[in-house]
């Protein structure tokens, strides 16, 4: 940008002083990054994520094959990892809260919930994932998103229907996890029930979302 009474250095004007040049470049770098991330200012972090949780999440994601998307669309895509806050958890049920801020112009097309299952019940378990709706007349509605059968302990990446997660304007997404022994699993529970999930430390549950700037083919669907 030409300054008052000066020419742009790139257009044959005099070169800036070294210190002014450095300041200008840092300012340009800041402006450029914020503009391209559609941010008015740098995020203020109220809830810092622990480095251990972050490291685990990234390690889990590493090596996951990318979707077979055209190269052209790559630069319009974002991947988001959102760590869960756990409101309550027991041997059979957990309520996870996610704070999301996906731009409205973006389209959610892939969602997976990553859980680290603890040895709660023996045998195969049936895990049902519900999405909680807004509170109405002191009651919340809930919608079944997915049902998975879990046999092994440890980390699981559970695919959720992306259509079931869209349209959350408040930016808060609540998922309830209900776990029961699968029919035919006659194992009995003895002793004190243990928790279903490890919800702290480096085994904190997280949601992996993929979004892109617009939905290819949306216009065609409308025309039909």
């Amino acid at each position, binding site marked *: 940008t030409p300054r008052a009474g000066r020419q*742009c250095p*790139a257009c044959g004007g005099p070169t800036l002083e070294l210190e002014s040049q450095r300041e200008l470049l840092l300012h340009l770098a800041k402006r450029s990054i914020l503009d391209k991330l559609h941010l008015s200012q*740098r995020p203020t972090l109220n809830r*810092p994520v622990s480095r251990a949780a972050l490291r685990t999440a990234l390690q889990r994601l590493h090596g996951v094959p990318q979707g077979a998307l055209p190269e052209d669309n790559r630069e319009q895509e974002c991947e988001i990892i959102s760590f869960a806050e756990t409101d309550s958890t027991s041997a059979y049920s957990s309520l996870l809260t996610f704070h999301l*801020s996906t731009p409205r112009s973006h389209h959610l097309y892939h969602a997976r919930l990553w859980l680290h299952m603890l040895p709660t019940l023996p045998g195969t378990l049936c895990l049902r994932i519900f999405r909680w709706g807004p509170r109405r007349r002191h009651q919340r509605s809930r919608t079944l998103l997915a049902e998975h059968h879990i046999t092994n302990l440890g980390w699981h990446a559970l695919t959720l229907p992306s259509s079931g997660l869209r349209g959350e304007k408040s930016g808060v997404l609540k998922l309830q996890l209900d776990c029961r022994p699968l029919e035919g699993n006659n194992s009995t529970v003895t002793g004190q029930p243990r928790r279903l999930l490890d919800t702290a430390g480096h085994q904190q549950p997280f949601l992996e979302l993929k979004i892109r700037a617009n939905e290819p083919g949306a216009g065609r669907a409308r025309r039909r």
Partner: protein
Amino acid sequence: TPTCEPATPLCCRRDHYVDFQELGWQDWILQPEGYQLNYCSGQCPPHLAGSPGIAASFHSAVFSLLKANNPWPASTSCCVPTARRPLSLLYLDHNGNVVKTDVPDMVVEACGCS
């Protein structure tokens, strides 16, 4: 486009690395730790105008002919980026979510005279 030598007066690419720690942003940008901003600077005398950035079209050929026959003031030709590439960023948003995105046109790869 040549990378600038210390005494290069002509349009060239100057390599410049921005460290996010220098910006005080290392707490919310997780990866990378910095990036090659790079920028273009230097003189664009009339014989270099229109190259190499826009030299490949009929329009630019006419433009160059006009310049050659009727030289424009030096200030109308600028040393500008002609090729850029994207940068992958991993950052924390306002809610503490980790976001990975490919930001287009972040790194200047080549410069030319407009």
